């Protein structure tokens, strides 16, 4: 089960990485519009659920830490080292992932890169662990739950009393919680965490979101913000009356603030999904990106760079490729109101199946290549 959770995080995580660095010949599709919403929502909620599960798993194998003699052979030493790498990378991956979602950057390194490299180390050590333990895993899956003894201090194949060696033996009577009881209690705890967190992705569960990190209905225009205008340092330039959008291509032109409203005639319902897992559906009004691209001499096959007023952030520009060029909107309105300054006033990009950070805000310039 844990292996499935870790695998899910790995696959959805790699999909998220692909949002940042798609290959030119295989651009992100524009539909289904909710694809990234589902994969990254799954990534974060699965990750949050894995954290307590790992605690239970480690607790159940804790006695093995004290098995004596500590190392019996070179092979055994290598195995224990691999378990150390597994445990350490899992704990660090899960805690830093969770803290990152809370915007609590308690480390000096670039989260995205280290999170990805550590994911390789973690998944590698899990694969190695599975390879080493395959016989035990098979035994564990075959044994009936109340009688399984894979978790005792002695490995089952060295234990003459193990059920697999001694045949069916009734489980020892205990006034304490049984193995099944532990699983039920842990499942209840993890289930409560999931139900009370997932409201930040699944709107109907927002009212019970007692542990939800984000609450979309508390954001301006009922959408949360990830980088505010102040954090981006654009409060002054973005509200300047002399603002223009410069569109460069074979036939360059500019759009002024006054012209925006005339051009912004298209509407679309598109979710906005943050890399941090929260997402919310929203209603947008704006200019189809393709209109401006065509006016600048490009077409649906062009590569389009959108550039923000924001300075000095890797997310101050992004590239629109392939099907998203035709599906993207340069939004002026959100949920029936003029775009809030924190949402990217006067103009921002919104495209389907696209990570929030790549929906560049406070646009200043567009390059049609």
């Amino acid at each position, binding site marked *: 089960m844990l292996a499935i959770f870790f695998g899910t995080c790995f696959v959805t995580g790699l999909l998220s990485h692909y949002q940042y660095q798609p290959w030119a010949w295989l651009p992100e599709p524009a539909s289904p519009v909710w694809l990234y919403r589902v994969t990254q929502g799954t990534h974060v909620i699965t990750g949050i659920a894995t*954290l*307590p599960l790992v*605690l239970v798993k*480690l*607790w159940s194998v*804790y006695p093995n*830490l004290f098995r004596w003699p500590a190392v019996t052979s070179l092979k055994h030493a290598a195995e224990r080292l691999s378990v150390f*790498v597994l445990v*350490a990378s899992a*704990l*660090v991956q899960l*805690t830093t992932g*969770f803290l990152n979602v*809370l*915007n*609590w950057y308690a*480390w000096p*390194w670039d989260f995205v*890169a*280290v999170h990805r*490299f550590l994911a*390789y*180390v*973690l*998944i*590698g*050590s899990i*694969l*190695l662990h599975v*390879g*080493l333990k*395959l016989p035990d895993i098979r035994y564990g899956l075959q044994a009936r739950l109340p009688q399984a003894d894979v978790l005792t201090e002695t490995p089952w194949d060295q234990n003459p009393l193990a059920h697999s060696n001694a045949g069916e033996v009734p489980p020892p009577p205990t006034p*304490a*919680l*049984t193995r099944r*009881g*532990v699983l*039920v*209690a*842990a499942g*209840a*705890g993890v289930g*409560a*965490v999931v139900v*009370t*967190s997932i409201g930040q992705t699944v709107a109907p569960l927002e009212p019970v979101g*007692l*542990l939800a*990190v*984000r*609450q979309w*209905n508390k*954001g*301006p225009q009922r959408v*949360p*913000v990830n980088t*505010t205008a*102040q954090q981006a340092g654009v409060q002054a330039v973005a509200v300047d009356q002399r603002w223009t959008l410069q569109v460069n291509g074979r036939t360059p032109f500019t759009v002024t603030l006054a012209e925006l409203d005339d051009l912004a005639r298209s509407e679309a319902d598109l979710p906005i999904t943050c890399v941090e897992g929260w997402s919310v559906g929203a209603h947008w009004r704006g200019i189809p990106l393709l209109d401006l691209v065509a006016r600048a001499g490009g077409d649906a096959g062009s590569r389009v760079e959108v550039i923000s007023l924001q300075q000095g952030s890797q997310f101050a520009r992004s590239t629109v490729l392939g099907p998203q060029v035709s599906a993207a909107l340069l939004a002026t309105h959100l949920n029936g109101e003029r775009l*809030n300054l*924190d949402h990217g006033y006067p103009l921002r990009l919104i495209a389907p199946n696209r990570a929030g950070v790549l929906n560049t805000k406070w646009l200043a310039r567009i390059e049609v290549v």
Partner: protein
Amino acid sequence: MKAWRISFAASGILLGLFGVFRLLTEVPVGNLVVLAGWMIGAVVIHDGILSPAVIAVGWFIGRAVPARGRRYVQGGLIAGGLITAVAIPLILRAGQEPPSKAILQQSFGGNLTILLGLVAAASLVLYALRVARDTRNTRSAKTAAGAEPSPERL
């Protein structure tokens, strides 16, 4: 089976080494030292503090709680402990970002109290059901024994 084991292990080693290689070549040394500190620290905190503390609590329950109620206390503590582990960072971090981000704008301490209350209530209900069942069983065993003393019943 052997082929499976070897392919799992070999692909795992390759992927892991690839990750280590990317870390070593693309992350500045200073940050790698801090990362190593995090990894060792995580294991030390978990194995050295958290697990022994859990075992101490378990030992205490074994002595202090009568056998019949023990599993309900343990179950409640497992579920509640896991919820608390997730809630603590939320409590520590609440209210530190601008309100328009709509992030961590709840009173998570209060919310955690509600959730723990629900867990405690559920454990109590389960325990009460157990007590009720035990009482019914003893009573019906007694009546059965009174009516016709049959050995199987006892």
